[in-house]
C-alpha cells in the first residue's frame, strides 16, 4: 500500500478544487455551468432563425453544446427532426393518426412540413462534417418512410463528461397548423422546429420516433435564440426577451434567453394583443405574466389571468414554487373548422410558454379557457421542471397534472362550471345548467375512461399503446388513480407526496419507480398493492351489490314483532381489478355496520342476525375507488325510487322527441 505523503501544494490544490466544486472557475467544456444552474444544462442551443412569412420558411443556424452526462460513451449522435412527421402521409405519426381514426384532413401539399438539415459539423479547430454520414433511422417501428430521427455516427466517441459543440444549419417549412405547430393566416406557432438532440442514458440513446399519441423528451440546457421576423410583429417565446434590434429590410431581431429548460417554442403574429400582469402571492416568488390574446378575445383577459394566478398559487403550495420569474400565455387562433384550418396549436406546454384555447362565444359557466389554462400552466411544474419522459411514461406529466388541475378547478371555481355544448358549426354554445361539472366525472375524466379502461396498463411505454387508448390511459386513468390514492392516504399525505416528488424530481428525469417509492416513503405505508392494482395492471374495476335477502330466523313465527331476521348481503367483483373496499350496511332501526372487504373473491356474503331489516347497502360508501366504472350498482336500497326517476326523465325525453318529430315533419 502506498503511503500518501502530504505535499506543500495540497492546501492550494484543495482551494482550487473547492472553487471548482463551487463553480467559480469556468472549466472549458462546461461553458454555461454557473452557481445558478439548477439542471445539468447539458444540451444548450444558440440559434439564429429568420422567418420568411410569405413562403412560410424558417432559415436557421445554430450551435449545440452537448455534454455527455451518461455513464456510457456516445458513439453516435441522435437528433429529433419532428417536423418530418408532417412531411408525408406515410410517417409513423401520420399512420398512427389514421389508425386512431383521426386522420389529418386539412393538409394539402403546400401545407406539409419539413425540416432539412443543411449543415451538421463538429466544431473545433478542425471541424468535422457529419452530414454525409447522417442517416434516418426508425428504432421504434422500422418504418423506412419515417424521417423523424437522424443518426450521426462519430469517428471518436464522446466520453462520459466530455462536451462537444455541433454547428448546424437547417431549413424548415412551417406547416398549416397540425397538432403542436403551424401557421394559420399570419399567426405562426413554432414548436419542435430545430434539430433536437436526444437523451443519452445508461441504456443508450433514448430518442424515439415521433408518435401520434406521445410528446417529447429532451435534456435541459441554456437557450439563446435570436428570431428575425417582420417589424411590428409580436413575438412570444420561451424565456425572456432581452433585446430587439433592427435587422434591416423591414425586419426585427428579437433575442430570447433562458436557462434550465429543455425546449424552445415561439409564436409571432402582427395581430396578437398583449396584456401584462404580475402574479404575487405571499410565500411564493413573483412571476411576470405575459398574455398574448387573439383580438376577438380581448374581453376574456381576466378569465385567463385568474386561472393562471390560481395555478401558480396552488401548484406552488402543493408541489413547490414555480422556478422562473416569467410566463407567457398564448391564446392561439381558434379552430372552428378543423377540416379547413388545421388542428389547434392550443392546449400545449413549453418551458415558460403555454398555449391555451378560447372561443369567441364561451359561456361564463363553461370551462374554457380556465380548464386548459390551468392544465397547461400546471405542466410548467410537471414536464417543465420535473422533466419526465413523455414518450415512455406520459402519465407522469399528463396524468399527475390532470389530477392536480382538476383539484385546482374544483377549489378555485366551486359549483361554477356546467356542461357546454357547441352548435351550428361550433360557433354557438349553450350552457346546460342542470349538467354540473364535477371533479370526478369531468375533471378526472371518468366518462372517457370507460371504453378504454382495460386497454392497457400504465407500465406499458406510452408510444406502444394503441393510439386511441394512449391518451385515455395516460390522462384519465392516472388522474382517477391518483385521486383514489388521495382518498386512501388523505390529502395532507398526498400533498406531501407531491411536494417530495417535485423537490426530488426538479430539473431531472425521474422514472415511475421513483414516484411509487416516494408515495410509500412519505405515506409511511407500503403502497405496492395500490400501484400493482392501479398502475401495473390493465384491469378494470367494478364492484356492486349483487343481492340482499332476508329470512326469518324462527320459521314458526316469522311475523312476530320480536322476530329475528337473518339478512344476507352479497357483494360482487365484476371487474378484474382487485381493491380493498368498505361495505356499509344500514338497518331500518338506524344502526349500521361498516365491513372491510379485501375485494379479492368474485363474491362475498355478509350475514346478519338481527331484529331489524337491511335498509341500505353501499359498496365503497365514501367513494374511495374512483376507478370503479359503474357507480350506480354500488348501492342498494329497500325503498328504491328508480321508477320515479325513470318517470321524471322520460317525461323530459318525450318533450325532446316531440320537438324532433314536429321539427322534421315541418317539411312534410
Amino acid at each position, binding site marked *: 500500500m502506498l503511503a500518501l505523503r502530504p505535499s506543500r501544494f495540497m492546501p492550494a490544490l484543495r482551494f482550487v478544487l473547492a472553487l471548482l466544486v463551487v463553480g467559480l472557475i469556468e472549466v472549458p467544456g462546461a461553458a454555461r455551468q454557473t452557481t445558478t444552474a439548477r439542471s445539468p444544462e447539458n444540451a444548450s442551443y444558440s440559434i439564429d432563425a429568420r422567418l420568411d412569412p410569405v413562403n412560410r420558411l424558417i432559415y436557421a443556424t445554430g450551435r449545440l453544446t452537448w455534454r455527455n452526462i451518461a455513464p456510457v460513451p456516445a458513439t453516435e449522435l441522435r437528433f429529433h427532426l419532428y417536423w418530418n412527421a408532417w412531411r408525408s402521409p406515410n410517417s409513423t405519426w401520420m399512420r398512427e393518426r389514421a389508425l386512431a381514426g383521426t386522420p389529418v384532413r386539412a393538409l394539402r401539399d403546400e401545407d406539409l412540413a419539413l425540416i432539412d438539415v443543411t449543415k451538421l459539423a463538429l466544431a473545433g479547430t478542425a471541424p468535422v462534417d457529419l452530414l454525409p454520414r447522417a442517416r434516418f433511422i426508425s428504432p421504434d417501428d422500422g418504418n423506412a418512410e419515417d424521417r423523424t430521427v437522424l443518426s450521426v455516427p462519430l469517428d471518436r466517441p464522446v466520453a462520459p463528461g466530455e462536451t462537444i459543440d455541433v454547428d448546424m444549419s437547417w431549413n424548415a417549412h412551417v406547416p398549416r397548423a397540425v397538432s403542436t405547430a403551424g401557421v394559420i393566416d399570419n399567426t405562426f406557432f413554432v414548436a419542435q422546429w430545430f434539430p433536437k438532440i436526444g437523451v443519452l442514458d445508461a441504456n443508450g440513446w433514448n430518442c424515439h420516433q415521433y408518435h401520434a399519441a406521445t410528446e417529447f423528451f429532451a435534456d435541459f440546457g441554456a437557450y439563446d435564440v435570436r428570431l428575425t421576423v417582420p417589424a411590428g410583429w409580436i413575438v412570444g417565446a420561451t424565456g425572456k426577451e432581452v433585446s430587439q434590434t433592427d435587422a434591416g429590410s423591414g425586419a426585427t431581431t428579437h433575442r430570447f434567453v433562458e436557462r434550465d429548460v429543455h425546449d424552445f417554442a415561439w409564436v409571432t403574429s402582427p395581430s396578437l394583443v398583449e396584456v401584462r400582469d404580475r402574479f404575487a402571492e405571499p410565500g411564493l416568488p413573483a412571476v411576470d405574466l405575459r398574455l398574448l390574446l387573439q383580438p376577438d378575445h380581448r374581453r376574456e383577459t381576466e378569465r385567463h389571468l385568474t386561472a393562471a394566478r390560481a395555478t401558480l398559487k396552488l401548484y406552488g403550495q402543493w408541489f413547490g414554487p414555480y422556478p422562473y420569474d416569467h410566463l407567457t400565455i398564448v391564446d392561439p387562433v381558434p379552430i372552428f373548422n378543423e377540416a379547413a384550418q388545421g388542428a389547434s396549436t392550443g392546449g400545449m406546454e413549453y418551458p415558460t410558454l403555454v398555449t391555451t384555447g378560447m372561443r369567441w362565444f364561451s359561456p361564463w359557466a363553461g370551462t374554457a379557457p380556465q380548464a386548459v389554462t390551468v392544465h397547461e400552466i400546471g405542466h410548467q411544474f410537471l414536464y417543465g421542471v420535473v422533466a419526465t419522459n413523455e414518450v415512455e411514461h406520459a402519465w407522469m406529466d399528463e396524468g399527475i397534472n390532470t389530477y392536480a388541475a382538476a383539484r385546482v378547478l374544483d377549489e378555485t371555481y366551486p359549483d361554477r362550471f356546467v356542461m357546454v355544448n357547441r352548435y351550428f358549426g361550433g360557433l354557438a354554445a349553450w350552457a346546460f345548467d342542470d349538467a354540473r361539472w364535477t371533479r370526478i366525472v369531468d375533471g378526472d375524466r371518468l366518462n372517457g375512461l370507460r371504453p378504454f379502461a382495460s386497454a392497457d396498463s400504465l407500465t406499458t411505454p406510452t408510444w406502444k399503446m394503441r393510439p386511441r387508448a394512449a391518451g385515455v390511459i395516460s390522462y384519465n386513468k392516472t388522474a382517477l388513480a391518483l385521486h383514489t390514492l388521495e382518498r386512501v392516504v388523505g390529502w395532507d399525505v398526498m400533498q406531501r407526496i407531491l411536494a417530495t416528488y417535485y423537490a426530488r424530481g426538479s430539473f431531472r428525469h425521474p422514472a415511475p419507480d421513483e414516484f411509487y417509492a416516494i408515495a410509500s416513503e412519505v405515506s409511511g405505508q407500503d403502497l405496492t398493492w395500490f400501484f400493482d392494482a392501479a398502475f401495473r395492471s390493465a384491469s378494470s374495476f367494478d364492484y356492486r351489490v349483487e343481492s340482499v335477502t332476508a329470512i326469518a330466523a324462527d320459521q314458526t313465527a316469522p311475523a312476530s314483532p320480536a322476530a329475528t331476521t337473518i339478512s344476507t348481503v352479497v357483494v360482487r367483483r365484476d371487474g378484474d381489478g382487485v381493491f380493498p373496499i368498505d361495505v356499509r350496511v344500514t338497518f331500518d332501526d338506524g344502526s349500521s355496520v361498516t365491513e372491510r372487504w379485501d375485494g379479492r373473491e368474485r363474491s362475498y356474503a355478509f350475514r346478519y342476525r338481527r331484529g331489524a331489516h337491511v335498509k341500505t347497502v353501499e359498496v365503497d360508501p365514501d367513494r374511495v375507488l374512483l376507478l370503479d366504472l359503474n357507480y350506480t350498482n354500488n348501492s342498494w336500497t329497500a325503498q328504491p325510487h328508480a321508477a320515479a326517476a325513470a318517470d321524471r326523465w322520460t317525461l323530459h325525453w318525450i318533450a325532446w*322527441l316531440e*320537438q324532433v318529430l314536429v321539427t322534421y315533419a315541418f317539411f312534410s
Partner: protein
Amino acid sequence: MPFSPDRPRATVLGAFLEGWRRAIVAPVVTVSIFVATLLFTLPLAFALRGMLETHLGQSMVADRAQWNWDEGWATEFASQAQGLGRTFTHEMLGFGGTMSISSGLLDARPLAPAVAGAVVAYVMFWIFLSGGILDRLARARPVRTHAFFAACGVYFVRFLRLALFIAPIYWVLFRWLHPLLFTTIYDRLTRDMTSEQQALLLRGGLYLIFLAALMLVSLMADFAKVRAVVEDRRSMLAALGASLRFIRRRPLRTVTLYLLNVLALLVLARLWLQIAPPGWGPTWRALLLTQLFVLARLWARLAFIASEVAFFQGELAHAQYTATPDPIWPESPSAESVARPR
C-alpha cells in the same frame, strides 16, 4: 254559391291573421294532433323508461336522480346503452334541446336510427292528416270527424304521390347543396380565417341560403297541397305546376307570408327560451310547460297552413271552397218560381 262578405282580403297580413283565426277556432284539430304526437312518442318512451329503470334498479343513485339531473349517472347510463339509450343526454333538456335539434337539422347531422324511424312514421302520419287539415281549414267551419277522416283518406294517396316528387328535391338539397355550402364553400372561405365572428357571419349567411332553398321547396309543396284540396285536383304533377305558377305570379307576397309565419315560430322559440323548465323543480311544472310549448308549436304550424289557404282563397276568385255540394232544387211549382223570378 253566394258571395260571402266574410271572404278574407288577399293581403299578406290579412291572410296571416286569418290563418291564426282559423287555427284558433279549430281547437279539436290542434288538440287531436297534439295528442297523436304525444302517442307517437310513447312506444319509444316506454322502451327508454324501461332501460332507465333497469339501470337504476335498487340503487340509491335514484334517490338523487328523481329530483335532479345527475350528470354522473346519465353519462354512466349512456356509456353502456345502445341505440335509443344513447339519446338520453343532457342535450335533451330545456332550450338546449331545441338548439340541439335545430342545429342537427341545419348541420345535417344524422338522427339515431330509432329516432329516425319515429320521424319517418310521424311524417307519414302527417301526410295522412294533411288532407283533412287542409279541408277543414279551407272550409273555415267545423266538420264532423267522419268528414275529416274522409278527406284524409281522399288525399292521402295523392299526397304520397306528391311526396314522391318533393322528397327527392329535399334529398338533393341535403346531399348536394348542403355539402356544397358547408363543406366546399365554407372550407374554402375559412381556411385562413382567424376570426370566429367573421366565421359566424359567413356561416349564418350560408344557413340563410340553405334555408331559402328549403323554404322555396316547402312553399311549393304547401301551395301544391292547398291547390290540390281547394281545387280538388287529382294530378299532383299538375298541382305542383299550379303551385309554381301561383308563386311565380306573386313571389314577394307568398314569400313574405311564409316569412311572417316563420317569424311567429321564432317568437314562440324566444318565449320558450324564457320559460323552458330546468331539470330540477316539480315534474308537473316541467310536463305542463313542455307540453304547452309543443301544443303551441303545432298550433303555429296549423296557423301557418291556414294562412296559406286563406291567402290562396283570397287571391283567386274561383277559389271559394266548393266542397259544399250544389243544391238540388225540389220539384214543385213554388220552387220553380223561386228559381226563375219574373
